[in-house]
């Protein structure tokens, strides 16, 4: 970090004149530490944060009031103090770390320690509310950095009297009890992310009562600046997305539905899927999603309608522009359609040329250029901090949120007393489908990776699978499972070989995460259905022991198959007569596709 006077001097030289900014923010900073250079860093961050790369000026000039060292209590409590004379618009309070301590003993009862933490937090919040009531200003409160000292060792987490645990408790209380008018500058989070050790500068404290190490002060200043901007409601409302190499790997127009990388088949596919999931959750929080892509419309929508591994579907988008016109034009069209200002848009693309065009022709739009590694996309989007809400409004809460879903699942597990009602309450839906070209990579992956729930462990390449698919004597199918909590994707693969009136189950495997969900029963139902349809009077299942597949050694007998003679320790054959089979009842709603 460059010393602050240097920064400000350079800014002045480069022609940046805060005085020309359209509005003024009167910012008061008070606290239990020396407020220089922190106060000027915050001033600098706020004054420069409105300066976009395109030269528009949303910046504000900051008039600064800095409280005296550790005088914040008196400045707030005294009605005619210089703090109130200043008439602040915004107050930033950094309470004294030294006062956030448990004064009792390490072995006091937990109740007493927790009560002390609650009291510490309540006192700080009461002080902040007094400052707000007297000044009418917005208020940001810094919570406490966690101590970096290693003492008292592993015991620190077992007593609320330790500085570490006590501060955590106080921070929790501050956050959970703060009224919506008080914003928390989460110094605990920032220092944990940055490292408590490097956030601390003991020399700086002893010499000039610096609250944090200098580099960390910059992070706190940026956070305060960010909250100050959020208070003005500058959060974005729309995220506009490119498609090829942004939502999936590859080019849909060239590579086709089978060729694009999306989903759990490859690490890159997983990364794109994670990015889609991140966008989906933004959607659930009330952020609108839109597509702006240079593509044929018909090709561009294919993955959303037909690719099983996509997280985002057509209904997730408020606007979908796939054509060959300039993206700047399409962005304007989306803005008209949604009746929203372009300054509430974030545009995301992996192509620097497109980003440049948008920056030039629609400078109001915030343009985010994605880096070369899709595993970083989520972080790159989040680091922009475009969509943060200071408070979640009732309108937001009405939307389906993943948090609510998680709570429901827990409640359900707790309330379901027996397995049957639990399974029924999951509202499971399965799609059983004949092998499809688009699924081959995932089928191949399961065939080559599944070890535990795999009765024969026969490995096959993608090419071999495609050859099987072309063979009329082979009937392969896959099972996808979803429940009310989400989609498990393609989780089971079965290959049956028919010779005359005999069917042999060549391969049966399943992902262990859906074990004991009655998928096994539905698989046997389907096997028998195919056998009957094909006129088979006998089905053979085979178990071949490996070091890892012990869990399915009794799968066939459990499913009603009879052992055939000649079984050995390592291999056993089981028989099922379709005519004698009674279809198993399950709690899964099954859809059959092109079988």
């Amino acid at each position: 970090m460059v010393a602050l006077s240097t920064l400000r001097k350079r800014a002045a030289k480069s022609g940046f004149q805060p005085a020309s900014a359209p509005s003024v923010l009167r910012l008061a900073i008070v606290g239990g530490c020396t407020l220089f250079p922190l106060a000027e860093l915050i001033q600098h961050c706020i004054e420069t944060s409105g300066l976009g790369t395109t030269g528009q000026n949303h910046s504000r000039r900051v008039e600064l009031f800095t409280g005296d060292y550790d005088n914040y209590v008196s400045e707030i409590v005294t009605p005619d103090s210089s703090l109130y004379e200043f008439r602040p618009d915004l107050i930033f309070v950094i309470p004294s770390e030294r006062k956030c301590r448990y004064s009792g003993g390490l072995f006091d009862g937990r109740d007493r320690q927790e009560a002390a933490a609650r009291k510490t937090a309540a006192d700080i919040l009461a002080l902040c509310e007094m400052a707000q009531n007297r000044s009418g200003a917005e208020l940001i409160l810094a919570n406490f950095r966690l101590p970096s000292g290693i003492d008292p060792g592993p015991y620190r987490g077992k007593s609320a009297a330790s500085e570490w645990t006590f501060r955590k408790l106080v921070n929790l209380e501050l956050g959970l009890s703060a009224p919506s008018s008080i914003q928390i500058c989460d110094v605990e989070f920032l220092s944990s992310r940055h490292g408590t050790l490097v956030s601390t500068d003991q020399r700086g404290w002893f010499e000039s009562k610096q609250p944090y190490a200098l580099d960390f002060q910059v992070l706190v200043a940026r956070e305060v600046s960010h909250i100050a901007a959020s208070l003005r409601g500058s959060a974005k409302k729309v995220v506009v997305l490119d498609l090829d190499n942004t939502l999936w790997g590859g080019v849909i127009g060239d590579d086709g539905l089978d060729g694009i990388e999306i989903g759990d088949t490859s690490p890159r596919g997983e990364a794109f899927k994670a990015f889609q999931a991140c966008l989906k959750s933004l959607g659930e929080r009330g952020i609108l999603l839109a597509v702006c892509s240079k593509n044929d419309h018909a090709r561009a929508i294919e993955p959303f309608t037909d690719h099983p591994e996509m997280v985002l579907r057509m209904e997730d988008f408020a606007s979908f522009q796939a054509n060959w016109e300039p993206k700047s034009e399409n962005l304007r069209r989306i803005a008209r359609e949604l009746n929203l200002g372009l300054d509430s848009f974030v545009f995301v693309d992996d192509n620097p040329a497109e980003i440049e065009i948008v920056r030039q022709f629609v400078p109001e739009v915030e343009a985010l250029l994605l880096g070369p590694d899709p595993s970083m996309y989520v972080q790159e989007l989040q680091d922009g901090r475009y969509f943060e809400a200071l408070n979640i409004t009732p309108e937001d809460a009405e939307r389906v949120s993943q948090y609510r879903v998680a709570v429901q699942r827990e409640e359900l597990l707790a309330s379901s007393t027996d397995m049957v009602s639990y399974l029924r309450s999951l509202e499971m839906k399965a799609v059983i489908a004949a092998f499809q070209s688009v699924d081959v990579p995932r089928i191949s992956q399961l065939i080559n990776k599944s070890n535990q729930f795999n009765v024969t462990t026969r490995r096959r390449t993608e090419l071999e699978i495609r050859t099987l698919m072309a063979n009329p004597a082979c009937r392969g199918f896959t099972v996808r499972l979803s429940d009310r909590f989400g989609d498990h994707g393609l989780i089971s693969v079965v290959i049956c070989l028919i010779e005359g009136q005999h069917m042999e189950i060549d391969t049966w495997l399943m992902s262990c995460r859906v074990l004991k969900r009655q998928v096994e029963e539905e698989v046997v139902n389907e096997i028998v259905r195919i056998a009957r349809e094909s006129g088979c009077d006998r089905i053979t299942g085979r178990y071949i022991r490996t070091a890892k597949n012990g869990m399915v050694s009794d799968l066939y007998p459990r499913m009603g198959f009879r052992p055939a003679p000649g079984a050995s320790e390592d291999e056993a054959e089981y028989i099922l007569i379709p005519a004698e089979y009674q279809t198993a009842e399950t709690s899964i709603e099954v859809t059959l596709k092109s079988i």
Partner: protein
Amino acid sequence: MSREQVFEALQAVFDDVFQEQVVASAELSASDVEEWDSIVHINVVIAVEQKLGIRFRVGEVEATRNVGDFADLIQRRLAEKGR
């Protein structure tokens, strides 16, 4: 680093930090410069540490009487770093 080079480095820092023209000389002390208060002092120390890649110990800078003392201290820390 020679004493001359240390003074050159100090001059560069002064040019960056002070608004007015301040010449780095051995006899100069903070009381000679109106702008040089405790706050600007923090800036000077940080800038020197960052420019030269050294770190002073607690209380050391405060114990120096003038820029000459400060330059001595800088040379000691630089020599230590070189070892």
